[in-house]
């Protein structure tokens, strides 16, 4: 079986996917939080 000889490619793909998804989730949540809190502070200041 061809996959048995190239196991590292599957391992690297899984790690790239895991790191990428986690980083995207953190960045999206952080930016959404900053944007929402900035908007709330602007509304309070008006």
């Amino acid at each position, binding site marked *: *079986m061809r*996959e*048995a000889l*190239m*196991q*590292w490619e*599957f*391992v690297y*793909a*899984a*790690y790239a*996917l*895991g*790191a990428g*998804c*986690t980083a995207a*989730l*953190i960045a999206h*949540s*952080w930016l*959404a*939080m900053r*944007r*929402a*809190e900035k*908007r*709330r502070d602007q*509304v*309070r200041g*008006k």
Partner: protein
Amino acid sequence: MHRFANPARFLKIARWLTPVLLITGIAIALPALVWGLLYAPADWLQGETVRILYLHVPAAWLGMMGWSGIAVASFTEIVWRHPLAGIAARAMAVPGAVFSALCLATGSLWGRPAWGTWWVWDGRLTSMLVLLFLYFGYIALARAAEEAGGGSGRVAAVFGLVGAVNIPIIHYSVIWWHTLHQPPSLTPAMLAGAKSPMAPAFLWPLMASALGFSCIFGAVVLMRMRAILADAQAEARLRRKALNVSAGQDGAE
């Protein structure tokens, strides 16, 4: 628990807890993944692909924990009408869905070289796929409730409670139906001191990775709760201002 239902008190705690959890999570998860990728041994049977374990198991754990959290928060919202419980449930939905999808994707990448197939309609894989669809349903329901005027989202809360029936099915699927997926590596009995079926060389990086990703999950949930809360506060203030303006105009007429 009722003490923390106050949004002001929650924000006071969340402001310092969010960066602490995020930094701790990254500081633990990153070395654990490097450990698993470069220094942990290969398995005698599965070879190098066993390294996917250090991502796959924490992702599965967090996918299931995310829905368990939604169920507890939904119950709290329905019974005690805590203002923060519904926000907590909604905040857990997207990270839970991301980790469930990650579990399925990494499992598929593991299955191809280990089993010779990307997918099989095995009890564990199918119940995990059902969990992902439940997350999609919950996210759509919560969003619909929000767009319908920020209602309590009781339909979403009931859905969150009913969907929890899938969690024990996922956990016991590998015990009830013996197919391709291996038996559980981490069991609740381990908390009571039972020995893991896994060798310590695999177990320690796995525990570190699970701990690190759990902290990251906690930080992401807090960030999303703060975002939902800030949006709600801004909307409430704008609505109050609009009412004051219209009341002033009525008074002047």
